[in-house]
């Protein structure tokens, strides 16, 4: 039922339900109190009547006399609802006031006053007791027909029902109005959010003057918008950078090949063009690999296994790998690492290889590259330190962005197109770690990979 999906309708239905329960219980309570009260008073009245009757009998010389003056007590009793019997020990009626012709009840003898509802279908209340009159047991029975009382209670019940239904209905209506009014801020919020589309991610929800709950929700939504905007602008920046980076080799390929085909060339020239093309293809291929790699490590669903990795062993292997390159530049790789982490070995190796290659590429000739670990609480910090040109503070915050290059002029065929450090960050984040960089004239440049030792991923 679609109407039930409205918060206002639901709330007003709940209001109505609560009101019905409340009014119903109050009504029931009042009704029963009244019934009990009336019954008690009736009984009192019947009891009084018995006492008066007894007194009358005491005063009169005999039943027979009373019998002759029925007017006396008929007037005394006063209305058509009243019943009165005086019965002897065999149940024979001596005196009777019975305008409605109710059959004479058969009642047990009792010295004290007893009350009972009339058996059978006649609605009447009886009080009776037995007394000695001139050595004869006489049973006095006073009664009252309940028709009038039942009619009154029925009317009262009806009123209660009407009050209940009206109350519930009013509660529903009022609840609906109040809910609609109360939910107005939500409606405004919905209108505001509806106005934000992909081109206006910079818009924020106006939170001034709203209730606390709405305020908190709006703030949460605003923060989400902030993250979306950031991610979105990053994505479009990446796409633009990526298109640029991919176009460069494609332009070379297209231009060079077309130029070569314009006229006949020597075999050597063809060969040179083809060889140059291979280099461009490799560059393209590497870039696609890197992008895929980033996409995979950044995808939250990617399932990559972890194992315990001995850092020292891994760095030794990498030092061994880069040793030739370092020696070529009259440099040394110093390995001062220890400890182990729970990580994906291949990813960690790639990250470290990128950092070492980066240090080799940007460090000054003849200076060593130091790789060392520090244990800080539950984390292991892997530092890769080199001496070289200082990275400016502006660049420091951006070196891990994709396609970002400190020096825009430097974009060699050999490079990964500015993705190396982005890959390092992505790997660090995949391991729930982080990567940092510090650069300073005195101390040189240090890249730090932070990994938690006991990652229970």
């Amino acid at each position: 039922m679609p109407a039930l999906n409205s918060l206002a309708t639901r709330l007003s239905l709940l209001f109505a339900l609560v009101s019905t329960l409340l009014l119903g219980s109050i009504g029931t309570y009042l009704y029963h109190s009244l019934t009990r009260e009336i019954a008690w008073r009736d009984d009192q009245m019947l009891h009084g009547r018995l006492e008066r009757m007894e007194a009358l009998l005491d005063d009169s010389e005999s039943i027979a006399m009373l019998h002759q003056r029925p007017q006396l007590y008929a007037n005394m009793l006063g209305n058509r609802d009243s019943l009165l019997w005086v019965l002897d020990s065999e149940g024979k009626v001596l005196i009777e006031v019975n305008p409605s012709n109710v059959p004479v009840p058969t009642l047990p003898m009792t010295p004290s006053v007893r009350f009972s509802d009339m058996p059978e279908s006649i609605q009447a209340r009886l009080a009776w007791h037995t007394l000695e009159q001139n050595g004869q047991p006489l049973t006095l029975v006073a009664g009252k027909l309940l028709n009038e009382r039942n009619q009154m209670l029925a009317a009262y019940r009806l009123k209660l029902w009407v009050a209940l239904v009206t109350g519930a209905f009013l509660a529903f209506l009022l609840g609906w109005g109040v809910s609609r009014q109360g939910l107005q801020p939500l409606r405004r919020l919905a209108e505001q959010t509806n106005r934000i589309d992909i081109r206006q991610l910079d818009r924020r929800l106006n939170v001034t003057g709203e209730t606390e709950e709405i305020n908190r929700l709006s703030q949460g939504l605003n923060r989400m918008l902030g993250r979306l905007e950031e991610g979105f602008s990053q994505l479009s920046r990446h796409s633009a950078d990526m298109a640029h980076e991919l176009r460069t080799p494609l332009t070379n390929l297209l231009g060079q090949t077309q130029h070569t085909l314009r006229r006949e060339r020597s075999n050597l020239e063809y060969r040179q063009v083809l060889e140059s093309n291979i280099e461009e293809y490799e560059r393209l291929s590497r870039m696609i690999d890197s992008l895929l790699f980033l996409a995979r490590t950044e995808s939250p669903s990617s399932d990559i296994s972890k194992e315990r990795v001995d850092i020292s062993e891994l760095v030794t292997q990498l030092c061994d790998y880069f040793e030739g390159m370092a020696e070529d530049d009259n440099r040394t790789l110093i390995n001062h690492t220890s400890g182990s982490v729970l990580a994906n070995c291949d990813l960690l190796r790639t990250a470290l290889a990128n950092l070492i290659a980066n240090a080799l590429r940007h460090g000054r000739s003849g200076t060593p590259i130091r790789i060392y670990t520090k244990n800080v609480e539950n984390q292991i910090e892997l530092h890769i330190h080199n001496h070289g040109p200082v990275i400016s503070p502006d660049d420091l915050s951006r070196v891990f962005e994709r396609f970002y290059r400190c020096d825009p002029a430097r974009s060699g065929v050999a490079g990964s197109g500015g993705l190396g450090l982005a890959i390092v960050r992505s790997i660090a984040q995949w391991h729930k770690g982080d990567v940092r960089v510090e650069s300073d004239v005195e101390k040189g440049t240090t890249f730090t990979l932070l990994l938690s030792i006991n990652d229970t991923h």
Partner: protein
Amino acid sequence: MRILIVEDEQKTADYLSRGLGESGYAVEVARDGYDAQHYIEECEFDLIILDVMLPGLDGWQLLQLVRQRSQVPVLFLTARDAVEYRVKGLELGADDYLVKPFSFVELLARVRTLLRRSPPREREHFRVADLAMDVLRRRVTRQGERLALTNKEFALLELFLDREGEVLSRTYIASRVWQMNFDSDTNVVEVAVRRLRAKVDDPFPTKLIHTERGMGYVLEDRS
């Protein structure tokens, strides 16, 4: 040696068949799954190169078909490099896989390895032109003169000698000499080869280590 190439992409199939043909193999090309099924059922091959995404029967189905009949080596070509695809291929009985785009040199190397099948015997002595290597005694001489090589240089030269005449790609060299199974954009391998050349080739008139630009390196006597 007969090789069946199952590949629906025309250009890929053409260059693969031409390239392998020039390397001395007899090549048949199947352009879709049913074509391939026919070949597999009718003919005997020494190696099957199988693309995964195919019209008709796909690569997985063909692989099962092949495995019901014989133990011929199967090399998978796949554009998807997700681990589960590799694992699935290998579990179904493929012998090796290559992720597109692959270099032809790489493919050729894998084909040769698969066709060799039995693990290559560890050789103890190599001789190419005036270069000699005694693996057990870790001695390398040229024109009878002893060359002092570092461990890595020795390992690299041993790899070249073992694969004499074959073009070895940079990634292959990195994975064999340093156990580095990732495509690094650094010139580590170039540097290592240059340093090896400085000791093995530079002082001598005959050059043995040659650069195949864009493909890799090869050791052979071209004099």
